Structure formats: structure tokens, C-alpha cells
């Protein structure tokens, strides 16, 4: 007897050590994954944060009728055609007199964004009373200047290695000293489409593209997926080889690389059905194919987890199959179905590869207004910007990732809320 006690006691230490070790492994892996997550998020936020602000420069412009070449009573057409470029250039020349060298003149013009003239044009067209005045306006600076003021250009570097030369630095110091430089919230980032000029590039077109694509995906994938799941789970004959075959294939489809779906979309939707390229319609169809297996599998699992006693009760009351499903099984499975659907949608929102295949990688400036307008989507926009050579696109890339992550977090939050809302105990 005492021998047995000894043996058990001897094994105890070993058992506890094992438990401790295992707990340590678990904790270590959690710490490790959290560290990676923190590193990832900090990097993105550090890089992307500056993109939400933009450097503006003060400029006193001469909007006299002579300078513009139009009167304040002129038609909108004439107002549009006036030479605003010259006005901006003159304002710059007036601010920095004595710049005569051709190279420096070019650099002077490059202080402000090329959108400055368009902004001025818009202001004048909205308010022709400005003609004849000498207003002080704030215009967007060029991306290099913006980058410099965000501290990304090291002025101690050799001049030849710098994007901004010494004479430009002198101008900028002068501007900054006189308070003619300001960092403002970057509204155009959220209100404009893509652009080759980093300071003018915005994510609205990609955001709208993603929105329309998700709209198409949601309206197709949710009802089709749930209906398929209901049929397979509640109506299809069990132990039928054909049904088994379909089940196996749905599970396989969930594992097919998404680019294959892109190729399929290209071949079927665009080549065969002749749908327009680069559109949310085709993108949504392809993403529907990708998310369907996820939704079907999640919905089936949710339906399966509804206790059979509820079905029995409904059948016992004389409910038909459809009544049983729609009155009892489906409402009880809804939290699981919604969670699965939203996770599938979040997956689709971040999907890039298949959309490259159907032409959604095109450079699209216009903001799409429907599902048949050419559009880019957020992940592709990120991909495009990360590929651009300008320094300022680095922060835009991270900023777009922040926006994408924001929407993913919102979707997951929605999933949690819906689950809480619909959760019922039985």
C-alpha cells in the first residue's frame, strides 16, 4: 500500500511539471502572437497616420479681371477657361521675387500641387465676386514639400541625394518662419479618387468600389448560401451518394486558391457572358463564388447545432418541414449564420488576387456610381499605391490599410453584436 503511495507521489511531480510546461507553451504562444500583432499595427499606424493630414501653403493671389482675362459677369464657360495656372504662378513669383533661373522657376512652380489651380478655378466659379479682389488662399503643397514638413526628408543629407535642394529649403524655412505653412486634416484623401499625384490621391473611389462589390456579393451570397445550407441540412436525403458528392465538393471549393476563381470569372463572366471589365458587378460575382462555400459550411454547422428536440417539438405540433425550418430552426441558427456570413464577407473585402484577374487593377480616377462603373477596390488600391515610386505613397498605402482594417473591425464588431442580439438560450 505504501509502495503505491510512493509511486503515485513520484509521478505527481512529473504530472504537475507537465501541466506547468503546457501552460507556459500556451501563454508563450499568445504573447508571441500578440507581439506580432502589436508590431504590425504600430508599424501601419506610425506609417499611415501622417497621411491623414496634409501640408497647406498660404498664397496671396491676384484675381483681377486683367490677370484672369474674364469679368465677374462672364459665363461659367468663360470662367472655366480662364488661366488659373498663371494666377498661381504669378502669386508664387510675387512671394519669392528674384527667382530668375529656369531650373529654380520650375522648382518654384513645384512648391504647390497641380491641383491648386483647379481649386482656385472652383472657388472662382462658385463665387465670381472674387474677381477683382486679392484674396489670401491656402493651397495644397506638392507631395515632396509635404513629405519634408512631415519630417521624412533629412536636410543634413548631401544635397545631391535630397529631393529638396538647398535653395528650396531656404524658401520653405522662410514660409515656415512667417507662418505661411499649415498642417490640416486631409479631407481630399476621403473625397477624391486615385491620382498619379500623391497629394491628390484619395480612397473614395476604392471605397465606393469596395462598397458596390460587397453589395453585389452580399445580395447574392447570403440568400444563396443560406438556402443551400438549409436544403442540404434539412431537406436533402441523407446517405445519398449524390448529396455526399456535393458536400465533399463544397468543402473542397472552400480550399480552392482564390485566383482560380478570378480566372473562372474572367473566362465565364467576362469572356462568355460579355460583362464589362473592372466592374463591381463582376467582382461581386467572383467574390460570391469565393464566399459561398464559407457561408454554406458555417450555416450548416449553425443549423446542425440547433437541438433536435426543437425540430421534434415542431413536427409533433404538426408543423410542416418548411414551417419547422422558418419558425424554429433558422431563427435559432441565425447568430451562427450571421457570424459565418460576416466573416465570409470580411474575407471577401480583403480579397485581392481574383480581382486582379478581372481587371479591377486598373487605374481608376472617377468615383463609381453603380455596379457597372469601372472601379478599384480597397485592397487593390493598396497594392497599386505600394507599387508607386513616390515617397508620399508609402504613407498613403498604410493609411489605406488603416481604412481597410477599420472596416474589417467594424464588420467583426457587427458580427459580435448581431450574435449577442439574436442569441437565445434553449
Amino acid at each position, binding site marked *: 500500500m505504501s509502495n503505491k503511495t510512493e509511486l503515485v507521489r513520484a509521478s505527481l511531480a512529473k504530472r504537475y511539471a507537465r501541466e506547468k510546461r503546457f501552460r507556459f507553451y500556451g501563454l508563450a504562444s499568445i504573447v508571441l502572437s500578440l507581439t506580432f500583432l502589436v508590431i504590425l499595427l504600430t508599424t501601419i499606424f506610425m506609417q499611415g497616420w501622417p497621411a491623414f493630414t496634409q501640408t497647406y501653403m498660404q498664397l496671396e493671389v491676384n484675381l483681377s479681371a486683367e490677370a484672369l482675362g474674364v469679368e465677374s459677369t462672364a459665363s461659367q464657360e468663360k470662367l472655366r477657361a480662364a488661366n488659373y495656372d498663371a494666377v498661381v504662378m504669378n502669386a508664387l513669383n510675387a512671394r519669392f521675387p528674384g527667382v530668375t533661373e529656369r531650373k529654380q522657376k520650375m522648382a518654384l512652380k513645384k512648391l504647390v500641387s497641380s491641383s491648386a489651380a483647379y481649386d482656385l478655378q472652383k472657388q472662382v466659379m462658385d463665387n465670381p465676386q472674387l474677381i477683382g479682389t486679392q484674396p489670401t488662399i491656402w493651397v495644397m503643397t506638392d507631395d515632396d514639400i509635404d513629405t519634408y514638413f512631415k519630417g521624412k526628408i533629412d536636410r543634413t543629407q548631401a544635397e545631391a541625394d535630397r529631393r529638396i535642394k538647398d535653395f528650396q529649403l531656404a524658401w520653405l524655412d522662410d514660409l515656415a518662419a512667417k507662418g505661411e505653412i499649415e498642417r490640416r486634416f486631409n479631407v481630399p484623401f476621403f473625397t477624391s479618387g486615385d491620382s498619379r499625384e500623391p497629394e491628390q490621391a484619395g480612397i473614395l473611389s476604392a471605397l465606393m468600389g469596395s462598397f458596390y462589390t460587397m453589395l453585389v456579393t452580399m445580395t447574392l451570397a447570403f440568400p444563396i448560401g443560406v438556402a443551400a445550407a438549409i436544403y442540404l441540412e434539412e431537406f436533402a436525403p441523407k*446517405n445519398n451518394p449524390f448529396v455526399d458528392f456535393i458536400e465533399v465538393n463544397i468543402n473542397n471549393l472552400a480550399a480552392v486558391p482564390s485566383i482560380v476563381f478570378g480566372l473562372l470569372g474572367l473566362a465565364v463572366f467576362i469572356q462568355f457572358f460579355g460583362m464589362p471589365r473592372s466592374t463591381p458587378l463582376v467582382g461581386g460575382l467572383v467574390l460570391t463564388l469565393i464566399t459561398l462555400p464559407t457561408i454554406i459550411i458555417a450555416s450548416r454547422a449553425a443549423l446542425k447545432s440547433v437541438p433536435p428536440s426543437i425540430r421534434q417539438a415542431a413536427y*409533433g405540433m*404538426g*408543423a410542416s418541414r418548411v414551417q419547422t425550418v422558418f419558425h424554429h430552426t433558422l431563427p435559432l441558427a441565425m447568430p451562427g449564420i450571421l457570424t459565418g456570413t460576416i466573416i465570409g464577407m470580411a474575407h471577401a473585402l480583403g480579397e485581392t488576387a481574383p480581382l486582379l484577374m478581372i481587371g479591377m487593377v486598373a487605374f481608376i480616377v472617377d468615383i463609381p456610381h453603380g455596379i457597372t462603373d469601372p472601379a478599384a477596390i480597397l485592397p487593390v488600391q493598396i497594392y497599386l499605391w505600394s507599387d508607386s515610386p513616390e515617397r508620399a505613397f508609402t504613407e498613403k498605402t498604410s493609411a489605406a490599410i488603416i481604412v481597410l482594417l477599420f472596416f474589417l473591425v467594424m464588420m467583426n464588431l457587427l458580427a459580435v453584436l448581431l450574435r449577442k442580439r439574436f442569441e437565445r438560450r434553449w
Partner: protein
Amino acid sequence: MNTLALTKNTMTLPISQDASAASAKDQPLDIQTIVEELKQASQPVGNPFLDDPKFYTRDVDVFYNQVKQAIFGVDLDIGKNEVIAMIGPSGCGKSTFLRCLNRMNDTIDGCKVRGQLLLDGEDVYAKEQDPVLLRARVGMVFQKPNPFPKSIYDNVAYGPRIHGLTANRSELDDIVEESLKKAGLFNEVKDRLQAPGTGLSGGQQQRLCIARAIAVSPEVILMDEPTSALDPIATATIEELIDELRQSFTICIVTHSMQQAARISQRTAYFHLGYLVEVNETNKVFTNPQHRLTENYITGRFG
């Protein structure tokens, strides 16, 4: 499954060589003899047939997945306004037989029912017989209380709603109140009809299920071990309830408790190994069983 259960049963039986228990009824009960004997019997012993029955069943066989036969040639009549108790060891087919009566077996894949089952002379398994209509006439209460995760009111109102029994809200209110009263639950829940039915105690939930079943005014109520998940007090309440319900409904109840069968039923059917062994008035079955299997069971030799 059956073989296993039987081996166990045989093991618990007294060994026949024991001098003390050497009467004719205590012959060794090995599986072969029992099955042979049950196969030979063309009909159950006792009194299975009635004039003008509610349910008339002859030669009912039930198969699961074409290979396993769960019920062998059951002949039984169930009378109007009677409580018939079905007893027997686990796996003897009493629940399976009960579920044939309102075609609940249809919902089980691979379940085949053969034979003649008539409800008021109408074939239950006829092609033109609609299971939905049948189940509105033959209600069911299950072993585990299974109220819908809805309010108490909605639970009871569900049947009348799906069958379209009421024209307006006040009629529905009346049905709900009346059903809850019949189930002896109304006084306990009248102030919280909108509370979830799942929030009630086990016994109250089971009475709610009974109220739900009687809300569609069925002709027959099938009860599959309705008190096995309940404590003795809740059980007593439900037993009283069953006795009252007998005035208006025919009740078939499957139970594992022989005392319960003795207390509440007028007739008792004893099932064994998928065969209906003996049917008789309850007091006859419990005081003077005709078949030695029945006697062994009710005296607690097995099961």
C-alpha cells in the same frame, strides 16, 4: 443492440438450478427460446382487441435502415378516452411504436413502417394521408420538456396559429388561456405570459408542452416518458393532469415507471424485444400477469 441488452438481462435472471425458484414460470430465459416463443405467438396474450377502437393496428413492423427490425407484428387496439400505458425494458420498441401512431418516424431517415394502422378507420400510412393533418389530430409530448425558445403565450399559440384555427386575436387568447388552464399551469404563469417558456421549471415546462399539445384540440395525445426528467412532485402533478385529460382525449403513454403505469392507465401493454407480449386491463397485468416475461418484468427480475 438488442443482443447486448438481452445478454445483460439473462445475466440478471435467477439461475434456474436454484432450488428455491424452481417454478414453471422461471425456466431459463435464453434469447433463442424467447424469440422463438414470441414468433410463434400469433397475437399478444391478454386482451388486445376492442370494439370500436380509436387506433386499430395489425401486423405492424418497423425497420431501421432496412436491416434492423425494431418492431415485429404488433397487433393492438387503443380505445377511446382511455389511458394506455406501454411498458417494457429499454430498446423493446415501445417508443418506436408510439411514434408510428403520428408518423413521427417519418422524420427519421431509413425508418420503414409496414402493416395496418387505422385511426378511426382511416389508414394513417395511406398515400393521401397528410402527416401535418395527422399530427394536428394526434399530438405528442416528449421525454425531455422542449418548449420553443419563445414566450409562454407563443408556445401555446403556435399550433392554433400554424393550423389557422383562430380568426382573431381574442379567440387565440381564449384558446391559450383554456389550454393553460387544462394543463394546470395558468395560475402559475398568468402574470407572465410573455416571459420565455424556457425560463420555467422542468415540471412547468412539461405542462407547457402539454398545454401546447392540447391547444390544437387533438383527439389523441402521445406521451413518450413525459415524467422521466422530472422530480416526484412535478411527476405527481402531471399524473393528476393526465387523469383529468382522459375525459377529453385518448392518451398513450410510454413509461419506465411501473407504478406510474399502474396509477394512471386503464390498460397496459407490455413490449419485449420488439414484440407486444401482453395487453390487458392495468390491474390484471399488475396483479395477474398471463405471460412469464411480463411477470418477470413487473416483479423486477429484469428491466
